[in-house]
């Protein structure tokens, strides 16, 4: 029983990260049919913003040295600005382009950001100590966990509630949901496309910034491709959750997290390294059974 709860905590913590990544990606898919491969680089930008730009092996903390109430908004501001800039310069001119063009544009942006980081900071991974105290062990009765797991789960819960409130209680949020359902119709009814899409990018940036904190605190390292694996899983989660449905993205993220955590436990020792292969086999099976995703949106069905 204890082992089971232990696995559940692992699954919830991993699933939280995946859900946050999937939500950041799913928002943009919903409003403009963009599969944003650069989301991972938004996360890296947030993480690298913590240190002084230089290729020195031992990094000097920059924003990372500030007290948390100042540091967190500062990083969010940096990432959200990058996301908004990308929207204005790249994705706004391409709004009517077809999804494959958008996709390759986001590859290119990802490529650009990745090597920009490499050019400025160097390719070597760097060790940083922002929030590393959170890795201390936390014992609750028979359960052993770490503070970072608890922080990850609760931060995710908070963010999801915040996003849910935003989506249901504010004008922008309601407009965004309308745009996700039927963008053209929403525009005809007076929803401003530019404002809605820019807001989606900003929120996506905020989510990316939070994920960069959670990753840095957990791993203590910075590397130009630190978030690529996470984001790959994020896409998969978005799709199996149901493209365009925000609840679906979150659900998809947790499902992948749970499957990964349980496979880690169930698989025999010598197959554990190939865990991801099994996760992806499950993904293909899920897609075959429910190609439209776990949460089916009525509006996503193709009309003739």
């Amino acid at each position, binding site marked *: 029983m204890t082992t089971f709860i232990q696995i559940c905590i692992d699954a919830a913590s991993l699933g939280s990260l995946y859900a946050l990544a999937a939500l950041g990606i799913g928002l943009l898919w919903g409003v403009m049919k963009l*599969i944003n*491969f650069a989301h991972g680089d938004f996360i890296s930008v947030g993480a690298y913003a913590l240190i002084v730009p230089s290729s020195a092996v031992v990094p000097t903390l920059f924003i990372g040295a500030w007290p948390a109430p100042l540091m967190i908004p500062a990083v969010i501001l940096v990432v959200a600005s990058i996301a908004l800039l990308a929207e204005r310069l*790249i994705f706004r*001119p*391409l709004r*009517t*382009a*077809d*999804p*494959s*063009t958008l*996709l*390759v*544009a986001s*590859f*290119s*942006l*990802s*490529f*650009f*950001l*990745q*090597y*920009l980081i*490499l*050019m400025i900071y160097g*390719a070597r991974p760097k060790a940083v100590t922002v929030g590393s105290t959170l890795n201390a062990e936390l014992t609750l009765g028979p359960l052993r966990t770490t503070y970072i797991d608890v922080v990850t789960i609760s931060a995710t819960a908070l963010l999801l509630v915040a996003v849910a409130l935003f989506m249901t209680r504010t004008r922008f949020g309601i407009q965004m949901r309308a745009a996700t359902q039927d963008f053209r119709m929403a525009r005809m009814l007076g929803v401003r496309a530019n404002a809605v899409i820019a807001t989606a990018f900003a929120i996506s940036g905020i989510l990316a910034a939070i994920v960069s904190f959670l990753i840095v605190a957990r791993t203590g390292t910075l590397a130009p491709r630190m978030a*690529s694996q996470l984001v*790959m899983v994020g*896409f*998969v989660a978005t*799709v*199996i959750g149901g*493209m365009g449905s925000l609840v679906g993205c979150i659900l998809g993220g947790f499902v992948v997290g749970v499957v990964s955590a349980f496979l880690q436990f169930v698989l025999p020792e010598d197959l554990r*390294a*190939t865990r*991801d*292969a099994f996760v*992806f*086999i499950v*993904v*293909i099976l899920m*897609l*075959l059974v429910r*190609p*439209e*995703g776990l949460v089916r949106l009525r509006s996503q069905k*193709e009309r*003739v």
Partner: protein
Amino acid sequence: MRRATVSPAAFLVRHSTVFILVVLMAAMAVVTVAVGDKTLVRTVAEIYIRTVIVVALYIFIGNSGVISFGSIAFVMIGAYASAWQTCCKALKPMSMVGLPDFLRLHTYPVFFASITSAILAALVAFVVGIPILRLSGIPSSIATFALLAIVFVIYSNWNSVTLGLLSVVGLPLYVDIWVALGWAVVVIVVAYIYQSSRYGLLLRATREDEVAAEAGGINIARQRLIAWVISGFFLGVAGVLYGHFVGVISVKMFYLDLTFISLAMLVVGGMRSLTGAVVGVVVLSTITELLRRAESGFHVASLHIQAPVGSQEVSLGIIMLLLLIFRPNGLTNGREIAWPRALTRSARSGGGNADPSPDTAEQHAG
């Protein structure tokens, strides 16, 4: 059997796209070899290998409209299959103990190996294609991505056969500019024949309107599977070529980076035409090479100027973004290169009853 009455000139004009592409490709090789700069010869040979990859991607993606993130898995399968057959006679029995005896203890001729490796890739494509290609749109793209991830994880952990994350070193280096050119020509010709064939046209119909095509009685999954298997075969060939061109293979060579850059070439060139696929490869490879040379430094008077590491990729990223923003449908905008229209008319009247193939009709509409 009307074709028999068509004069050779009319035949050339009607299928001018493929002839022009092949002649240009061959001319590039002849000029390069005549210039004789060794680095340049290698660069051009690599362009031909890339052409095999991107045109093979085009056979599936361009004609079906379904983006596949997973096709590079077949490049990996081809490369390793060829390595098992041709590489490291002395080391193989000890280092790759998981191989069956006919591979572990024997070495096969390179051409034979290239064909069997490509067939293996096509077979795998066939088997995995049957379930995956029943999906459409983004779910099918993500399923192909899952395929790439699965193949990558298996090959990087199957130590007794692939040496895991270590490189396999010492593949025979028989691929030079001519071998690469030969395969590039073959893939271009096959892609052209396929897209002008009944099957290619059926698949293109599903690309334009999936619902209408299905209502018209086209079995979408089957048409996609045909293109997918042909594409898988040539991606396998490309893997063989890469392995025997570089001499070293490792699983990391055939993963996300190659996927991204190949898709970028296809889309920047224009994924809806064969010409677009070829143009994308040539243009992006040329830009990359120029940037690479700029990054390695140049001399102004006695001053050696060198760009910082990474500036090559940063500039490439900016250039790709600009190309996409200004030409969102690709450089060719979905059109094929063809003999000028005015000349086509006169040739056609001379050629007698040559009915315009659906393909040329499409170019004129574009």
